[in-house]
């Protein structure tokens, strides 16, 4: 059997991903049983290798052919500058939204600075509308920026909106809805097309109820 190597995002979406794989009939015991430290796991019977990686590295592993498939959030895909990746399936996991948010007391201030962990998405979004802003890249706690007068707006992922609320921020624009995607590189998509199609169909049946 042709082996399939699938890169899984560690973190927030890992458990929902494993749950989906299990419902699609894949043996995820090998992943669940391992200690957190092992990064490459083999399901010998199913002919699948799993690579556990940081979400931001998944496009790289897949693009260079180290992994045939990757499970990764659309936010990561939008933010990366890698080459061609094929988006085969929306796994409809980890639903959240990329939004512009502002301090609720200062909505009328013009936006000069936007703080974000997603500089490419932010730059592109404002540029496409011809709005001039300066993008400030932060690595965490973006919601602090308006409180500290570092920026008049932030671009960030929200799921429940709780963090925004706690920091007196309100969503003013939605940039894109974000879900988890199954991606492939061009080579694997062709050379392993039969196995990939089976894999996509198995997951698709669970996701959609009736994927052919």
């Amino acid at each position: 059997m042709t082996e399939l190597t699938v890169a899984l995002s560690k973190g927030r979406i890992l458990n929902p991903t494993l749950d989906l794989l299990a419902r699609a009939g894949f043996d995820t015991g090998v992943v669940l049983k391992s200690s957190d430290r092992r990064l490459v796991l083999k399901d010998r019977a199913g002919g699948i290798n799993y690579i556990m990686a940081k979400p931001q590295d998944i496009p790289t592993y897949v693009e260079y052919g180290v992994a045939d498939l990757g499970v990764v959030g659309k936010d990561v895909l939008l933010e990366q500058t890698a080459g061609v990746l094929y988006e085969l399936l929306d796994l409809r996991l980890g639903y959240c939204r990329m939004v512009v948010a502002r301090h609720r007391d200062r909505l009328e201030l013009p936006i000069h600075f936007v703080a974000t962990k997603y500089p490419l998405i932010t730059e592109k979004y404002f540029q496409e509308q011809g709005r001039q802003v300066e993008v400030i890249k932060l690595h965490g706690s973006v919601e602090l920026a308006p409180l500290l007068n570092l920026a008049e707006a932030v671009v960030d992922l929200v799921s429940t909106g709780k963090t925004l609320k706690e920091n007196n921020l309100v969503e003013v624009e939605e940039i894109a809805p974000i879900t988890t995607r199954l991606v492939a590189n061009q080579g694997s998509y062709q050379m392993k097309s039969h196995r990939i199609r089976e894999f996509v169909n198995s997951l698709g049946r669970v996701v959609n109820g009736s994927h052919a």
Partner: protein
Amino acid sequence: MEKKLQYLRKPEGFKDLLPREAALKRRSELVLSRLFAAWGYREVVPSTVEYSSIFTAGMKTDYEEKLYRFSDDRGRTLVLRPDLTLPLARVVSTHLQEEPLPLRLFYQGSIFRYLPSKAGRQREFHQSGVELLGSRGPLADAELLALAVASLKALGMGDAKIFLGNLGFVNSYLARTGVSAEEGERVKAHLSGKDLVGLEAYVEGLSLGRQAKEDLLGLSRLKGGREVLAEAAAWVQHRDVGDMAELFTILDSHGVAGDVLVDLGLVRGLDYYTGIVFDGYTGNLGSPICGGGRYDQLLGCFGRDLPAVGFAVNMDNVLLLLSRQGFPADAPSPGSTLVAFAPGLQGEACRAAARLREAGRGPVEMALEPLSLGESRRFAAERKCRHLTYLERQGETTAAREEDV
């Protein structure tokens, strides 16, 4: 970090090929140029610099934001060529008017694309490719496919496969589902990047019947062996399907039908393709090793109405694969010889080296100063020479001592 001398810096996206890699490139290019010549293709070396208009006017390409631009002394915009097909089309439309058709041409060279920089991403790419101009039929398509298979085999990639689509088929398939021309273009844009998630969302939003929507989504699943053509024929009575079936019959005669698979959802970002399109893949490379297709309208943009079909081998991927495999063992080098000499015998050493080179026994290099026998043995070993020829005096005469290192 210590501050490095500024003149040691290299422009991002460009790299130097060091001797091992350069030797691989030279050898691969030689293999391909011999193969292309054996099939009757003649080499053209188009200019590296072009006016930007040939890449931005006429045909719709996605080059606009990827060009290295500068200007000549009259302020006209020059570019480093981002592909070799358009320069070749210009050459054929200007210089080769008198040549009998079909024209068979090949090229080997660099192309330059100003892509967003990210650690190590390249902006200069090496290609070896062919163009067959002046014929429209399946025989020409088959020749190109057979030559593509032969190229990959000659480079030692026995497991490579070619994936074949047809834009003529895609267009009539789309038309049959009832989408407008504009909607069809959007569908093709999604297919060309295999954005199947985006495609599904887009198709869901179209005002079409359920069956038409399923047909649009089904296009990317029309892939596999040649039996897919029979399946496709049931969907669309189109001459392109018949042509593709005929094409496979000819590929059988070329002995390469087993190396070619069908992918009818294959669409290319470049707008100039009109008929067959194909990509080649091998091993676990994430990106194609070669690609090409038919572009019957392109030459018309240069004022010469000629059908054409071509492909290029991505030499950077070839080098990557070959260097991962280590040096191919097909042409074992006999190992080089060091010619060293005792004081006063440099003239004899020059003549001895000349004789050895003439005899064609592999590379011969010379010591550039007199050495003792012991020194020359160490020197030969250090330089990984296989043989040593040491010239020394024995009484009145000069003797050549030959040994293996």
